[in-house]
């Protein structure tokens, strides 16, 4: 722990990353207490106060139906984080299992699993997610599914490569000679040695998942109104540029802060865990 803290605090960029992520997570967690108008995350209409530039009490201005933009951005963070975490919780175990099996089991299993992975990797991610969302109804759950489908192959390729290297280590041979099961060797012997790389990638990816989810909703394929979402907020505001600039600039900045923060944190993790992928 001390070593971790030392490495992170020794680099100004890592400190910035930690601060940004702490701000994002804490504000999302305590949105009910820090936002001035918690009810504005839903269908509230206040036409007496619509499309106001930043001022007081609406520090980031109001949207086209008079809702406080700051409130909506903080609640959008909550949705984005939940989406990012759920996507990773689904994609990582799937990708890791496929990667371990492809790396450790025989040639036939490798062929089938890795060709399948490559097929998914060869489709541009946004196109894949768009086509899924085009077929399904655009809801939060379906959005998560779509992003998950495009995300797991990256983990299976990462873990596949790590497994190929680990499998040559003596401890794998030792477990085989003892007669341990393939399941034991894959998940108990090999997997823990892949954790540092997986954790680093997860931190970096949390930012990218948020970005992709925002892209989807920017295109109208993600979370639907009135649920606050950074991507759809940018899309709505884009029609009123440059006059009502706050409608796009602040949600855009919010996306930037989250993605940038997770990237800086991921780089710090890479240092701490000694992984260079």
């Amino acid at each position, binding site marked *: 722990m001390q070593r971790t803290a030392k490495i992170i605090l020794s680099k100004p960029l890592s400190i910035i990353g930690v601060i940004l992520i702490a701000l994002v997570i804490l504000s999302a967690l305590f949105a009910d207490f820090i936002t001035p108008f918690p009810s504005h995350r839903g269908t509230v209409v206040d036409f007496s106060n619509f499309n106001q530039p930043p001022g007081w009490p609406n520090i980031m201005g109001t949207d086209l139906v008079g809702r406080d933009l700051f409130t909506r951005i903080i609640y959008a963070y909550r949705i984005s984080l939940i989406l990012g975490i759920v996507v990773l919780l689904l994609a990582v175990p799937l990708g890791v299992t496929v990667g371990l099996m492809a790396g450790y089991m025989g040639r036939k299993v490798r062929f089938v699993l890795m060709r399948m992975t490559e097929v998914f990797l060869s489709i541009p991610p946004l196109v894949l997610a768009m086509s899924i969302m085009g077929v399904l109804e655009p809801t939060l759950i379906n959005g998560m599914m779509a992003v998950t489908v495009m995300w797991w192959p990256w983990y299976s390729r990462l873990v596949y490569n790590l497994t190929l290297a680990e499998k040559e*280590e*003596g*401890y794998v*041979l*030792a*477990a*085989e*000679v*003892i*007669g*341990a*099961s393939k399941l*034991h060797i894959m998940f*108990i*012997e090999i997997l*823990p*040695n892949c*954790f540092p790389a997986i954790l680093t990638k997860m931190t970096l990816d949390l930012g990218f998942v948020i970005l992709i989810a925002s892209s989807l909703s920017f295109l109208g394929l993600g979370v639907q109104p009135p649920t606050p979402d950074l991507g759809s907020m940018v899309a709505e505001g884009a029609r009123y540029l440059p006059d009502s600039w706050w409608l796009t600039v602040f949600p855009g900045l919010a996306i930037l802060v989250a993605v940038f923060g997770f990237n800086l944190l991921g780089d710090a993790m890479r240092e701490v865990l000694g992984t260079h992928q």
Partner: protein
Amino acid sequence: MTTPLLEVKNLAKVFKQDGFEINAVRDFSVSVKKGDCLAIVGESGSGKSTIANMILGVHPPTSGEIHFKGKPLSPRRRKNERRVLQLVQQNPYSSINPSRRIGATLKLPLKVHGIGSSQDRPGRVEELLAEVGLPASYARRAPSTLSGGQCQRVAIARALASQPELIVLDEPTSALDVLVQARVLILLQELQSKRDLTYIFITHDLAVVRNMADRVAVMRDGQLLELNPTGKIFENPDHNYTRSLISASPVITKKEIKLREKLKAGLVRER
């Protein structure tokens, strides 16, 4: 004549890669009596480790048979066939999983072969550690906190855990420095007589062979050149290649002999 513990008949292994065929081992036959130590010597690439892997059931042989106590071993080994044949590898740092504690590493063979109940396994781990001269507290330590010699002792304890009858020692001392080598070899000799173990000792270090082995098999390019008692190998080898191997090995100095005597008397303990 009693049946040998291990009998290897006409063992051969061909590796195929990119259309090429490599004869790693050709027509290798040997039998090992219980309690014996057979050394397999030869330079790198002579097929020593391939033989070890076939005996241990890691790779199936291309042709030939392996009999244990007179019965042929199945190509896909059953658990009880694996239990009696164990391995100590060359590189102790790689052979111990760095992300698991020593206790977990030693518990694995106990779990796999259902030795003891889960309650008395920590006790068995302590006994195993004591047997290889390590304190019981090491069960809670991570491999990265151990020296090479200590790691190798853990690897030996792990090989003993499943109560095997034959242990393949694949260059068990060549990654260690000289002092530690001597201590590990003494430990291996003690364990052999105490547990009535049979060893197959794979090495290219002839000084070690002279101390440990009853018989020596000399390999070159996958072929068995000669198989003779250790005394004959060093005094009057059949094959010129054996002669050149022996002449190339370093001579033990008087200082080293003295050190060895001292060690044997148990005056220097490793910690």
